[in-house]
């Protein structure tokens, strides 16, 4: 049995804007099993953009049925409701695996939200369901629609509907240059990951937008490597490249090439042995923090604080604080994106479930490597994006690509909380293992930052005044009064 299916979705605007080298680089990076183009006329463009033999499909003008990997299909694309009869044929011929979820992709369903009347309808539902019923379709399907965004997932009666196209909001106006990679799992789980078109090609470098990218290409630069191999003072000689910009560009190219962290300031990271954490919840505004993975670098122990009881939502948080205050209260808590997510969420839940620990939480030293490096301009992290998995990978961390995202995990948790039973129960061990991997990869990144050489003498700090103010804060020990 093969693993999950990787589907890359290329909206019209993204294809319009991307250069050929960006398109091919993106397909290589995403290594999809299937490519979907929202605009039919981009089909040949995308096929030409890769050397690999990846099928490119265009559901918008599809006729008939298309089955991926006839030997063990996971995804079937149809053009009209009439094609549902061929699903029945596949089922009858035992060609669809009854133990796994099958994904049915089409352009036939549209989510229509009317806020003035406070109604939402699934346009096309009646005909679609009628076709399923009249054909006696028996298997378990998730219905993928081109007319909803990838984070859309909802049950309409018996139909599980999942969106596919970034920026699709039913108005028909695509506004985004985002490409999405959907990972379709055999158990029905769908993870999606968005990546901006500008993360590929020369545009992936800091300070390079379409204009400067054109200038570079005209001057003969074809890759980031070319830029990394050219000293800043030469880059500076081109039109539109100032001294500071050239340095930033060069540093960003070098970081990507070297697979190293490049420091751009003198600010320090915490010296004391950090406590690395990662939390899992049921969404961005969580009702439960059900898992806190903790790597105590002082003892090198990995700990899991968890609750599997929907009626004991605070247990993990309570136990974590008990442990922290007893064993590690003078050491910094480190979380990637902690500033934006983990820290405020924990503060809120500590207040809710064990408010006696609020002071201890407030007093704790909290550090977010992402915030420190990217937002406060203290370092350039290698990696196509600043997401933890890309940075860790850029630094050489090897990991199994689970294709699971925080959003997907949240969905799993929401489903279980809505109806706790065997069918919805999450695979706890698996999630705990992924969490451990995330925590360890973050520790790896942190160590890389700590070890990085300072680029002595090159004060690359974009906007001097703002960064100075914030660098002063960080130099004071990265206390987190954010």
């Amino acid at each position: 049995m093969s693993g999950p299916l990787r589907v890359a979705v290329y909206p019209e605007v993204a294809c319009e804007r991307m250069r050929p080298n960006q398109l091919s680089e993106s397909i290589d990076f995403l290594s999809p099993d299937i490519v979907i183009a929202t605009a039919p006329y981009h089909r040949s463009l995308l096929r030409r953009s890769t050397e690999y033999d990846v099928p490119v499909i265009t559901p918008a003008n599809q006729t008939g049925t298309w089955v991926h990997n006839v030997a063990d299909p996971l995804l079937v694309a149809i053009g009209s409701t009439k094609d549902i009869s061929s699903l029945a044929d596949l089922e009858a011929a035992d060609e669809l695996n009854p133990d796994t979820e099958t994904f049915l992709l089409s352009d036939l369903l549209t989510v229509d939200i009317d806020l003035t009347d406070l109604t939402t309808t699934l346009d096309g539902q009646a005909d679609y369901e009628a076709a399923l019923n009249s054909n006696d379709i028996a298997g378990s399907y998730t219905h993928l629609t081109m007319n909803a965004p990838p984070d859309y997932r909802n049950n309409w009666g018996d139909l599980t509907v999942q969106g596919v196209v970034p920026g699709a909001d039913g108005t028909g106006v695509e506004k985004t240059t985002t490409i999405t990679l959907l990972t379709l799992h055999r158990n029905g789980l769908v993870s999606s990951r968005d990546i901006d078109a500008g993360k590929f090609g020369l545009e992936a470098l800091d300070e390079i937008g379409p204009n400067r990218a054109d200038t570079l290409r005209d001057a003969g630069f074809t890759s980031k490597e070319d830029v990394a191999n050219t000293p800043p003072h030469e880059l500076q000689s081109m039109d539109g490249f100032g001294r500071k910009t050239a340095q930033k560009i060069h540093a960003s190219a070098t970081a990507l090439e070297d697979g190293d962290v490049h420091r751009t300031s003198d600010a320090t990271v915490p010296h004391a042995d950090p406590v690395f954490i990662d939390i899992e919840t049921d969404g961005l505004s969580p009702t439960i923090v059900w898992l806190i993975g903790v790597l105590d670098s002082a003892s090198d122990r990995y700990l899991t604080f968890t609750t599997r009881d929907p009626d004991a939502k605070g247990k993990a948080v309570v136990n974590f604080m008990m442990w922290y205050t007893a064993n590690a209260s003078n050491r910094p808590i480190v979380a990637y994106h902690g500033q934006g997510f983990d820290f405020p969420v924990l503060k809120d839940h500590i207040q809710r479930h064990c408010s006696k620990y609020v002071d201890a939480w407030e007093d704790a030293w909290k550090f977010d490597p992402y915030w420190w490096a990217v937002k406060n301009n203290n370092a350039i992290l290698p990696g196509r994006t600043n997401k933890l998995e890309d940075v860790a990978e850029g630094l050489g961390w090897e990991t199994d690509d689970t294709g699971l995202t925080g959003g997907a995990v949240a969905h799993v948790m929401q489903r279980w909380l809505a109806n706790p039973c065997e069918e919805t129960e999450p695979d706890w061990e698996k999630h705990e293992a992924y969490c451990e991997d995330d925590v360890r990869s973050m520790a790896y990144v942190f160590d890389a930052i700590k070890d990085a050489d300072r680029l002595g003498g090159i004060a690359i700090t974009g906007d001097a005044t703002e960064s100075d103010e914030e660098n002063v804060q960080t130099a004071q020990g990265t206390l987190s009064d954010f």
Partner: protein
Amino acid sequence: MSSHTPRYALADSLEPETLAQTFPDYDDQLVARTVQEASDGLFEDPESVLPANLADNLDNDLYSHQADALAALQDGDNVTVATSTSSGKTWIYTLYFALLKQQNPDARALFLYPTKALSTDQEKAVNDLFNDLGVDATAETYDGDTKSGRKPIIRDKKDVVISNFAGINEYLSNHVKWNDVYENCELIVIDESHTYTGVHGMHVAWVIRRLRRMLNHYDADPQIVCSTATIGNPKEHSESLTGAEFTVIDNDGSPHGQREIAFWQPPVDKENDGHGYISEDEVVPDMRKRAGSEAARVTAHLGLNDVQTLTFTRSRQGTEIGAKQAGSAAGDHPSDEYLRVKPYHAGLSKKKRRGVEHQLKSGETDAVITTNALELGIDIGGVDATVLAGYPGTRQSFWQQVGRAGRGGSDSLSVFIPRSDAIDQYILDDPDYLLSDDVEDAVVDLENNAVYARHVLCAANESPLTEDDVEWFGPRDRLERAVSVWQDAGRMVGDLDRGAQYNGAPRPQSDISMYATTDELYDVRCTNGDIDMEPIEKKRAYRDYHPGALVMYDGQQYEVTDIHEDRYQPYVEVQRVNTREYTITLSDKRVHDLEVKESRDLGGGFSIHKGMGTVDVAYTQYKRMDIDGGHASSGMMPIDLPPVSLRTQLMWIELPNRMLPEVEAAVNDEEYIEPSEDSEFAGMSPARFTVAGGLHGAEHGMIKMAPLELRLDNSDMGGLSMPMHPETESPVWFIHDAVEGGVGFSYSIYENFEEIALKTLARVEHCSCGRVEGCPSCLMSSQCGNNNEPLHREATQFILDQVLYHATD
């Protein structure tokens, strides 16, 4: 101070009659006068409501309303203070906070203002007051301009956080960081609360509910003070705005001198008077000199007579032109002196503005021509007289402008010069309207579901929604429907029993545009200057900002050059112009799918209704009109935009079918109007066309006169009239809101139907135009999508008469 000796007695006897007597080439401009009697003011000993340690630090006694408000607050009430400006409202809430702080050193407060400029002014005023009172408290502004390093300090340490509602909307997503402020919050102040109406008011009302909900989440229950100008419905408005109950304090105890108001009608412009001498009865308001230029002459005359004058006009350009005109009027003046006169408006640099303010105070200038920028707030000491070039739109503004005249408690003179439009002419017909206590109502409506749903989504992001939230977002079934819509849209998970949780992209609060009801927003960009305008809704862009339209914004005229739509952020492109024209846009309109919410049977077959409907509009052509002559200065030009469909609130009146022959019979058939050959009504019988003109006139008239009762602008509304509507199967006219989902304006017209209809009838009857089709002062509207066709004054009168006869039965 001026060193010349006044030649006339005007400065010593500042009265309308003396003005008339001394005015050069006087041409019977003084047509009426009215007087607002002086008031000595009512005072209270501060110690009656404040502890000695605070009372001792006050130099003066309190006004009675300040004392009343403090007493009510100490009783635990929420208080709405509805008194005039400069009546010391800031003192009320600042003193009260000082009191709270004495009782609880950890007490915090939120003082919320509608603009950043006001926030800055008030921050200083409040801190100065704390200083004078010897209270250990500070206030500081926290908004988009605050440096990020400063923000944590303000949240953690500053007793009073000053901000605005756009900010509060965003900050609610980070309520965890604000927990110290929220937990200890004992007072919320909503200043200039009357400004929260219409679309913006709706958003603010929901933000306030979300704020109170989060305060409740942190176990706080602060008192609320609404500080408002005089409006017709202060209690209702505050309660709609906040969801809390209020005690209203509106007996203004501040003193003022006697205010005499001269109604000064511009003389006939002999240049327009092509036939030589015409009789008084035949003069149409449009034939008179423009209010602005007459105001300039009056200003010059006053200023040259040692009467320091502040003249209000409607546009920035008007101030610049007015200053020049006053200067040349001084040149023509028999006194042969030099007039020191300056323009003032918000477009001038801060330095220039401070300069003019100072010159007013010190007497270094004789006159200032200004926009409503100097209506309130800024300290200029007081002038001897004010001149109003045109009615400023509301009674409250009118008295605010008038109130600038008079130093200390001395008597003052104001000169009101009407323009030719319907409202000004109405006031000229009925000056007592200004004195009436029944001031315009401010409208805040919460029924717009689109806006409601967006705020419910934000609330879920702030904290999952439960049964308890019916308190803020009820009734229960509305909240359930909103949750259900968002669930199906994939943005919420769960239900009210377990908790409905937000499940979308971070920070839905950033998707809220505080001035619009939909998210189809178009930027407005100027190619030859700056325009600092909030993005507008697509439908408004099509209607008012189509290519070729001439628009006024903040006193500056612009022409729309293009609309760019095929892109991520659509925008309207405008350029600054300066023409004496405006544009009329023609459209085809249909109203259908009516859903009645409420009806009233007026008897005799007449009924009025309010509810929802779909308005389909196609903007087809436009033409340019000359402001001075009132005629077209261009031919019809096409508009290339697709039609729009608006689902919104409306009110309508259904007339019995027998009205059609009755109107025909009532009108003299010699006065029937006929459609022209190239009109869209070509072929309609004159009788029928006349009846249609009556309905259309009634529709226009009511929209034009609604601002006399309600705080709204006619551009917030639209209308449609038909001798036979397919759904109501009767003659009908509709008045609808101009934004998706509605904002309560047409519903308010439904509520105030008789008053508005009466005023409309009065205006139509009294209009001196004598024309069959009416004129811009009675029936014609610059917003008419039908080229002001058909209109028939007598038919309109008859119809309104019949309606009112039954309505008031």
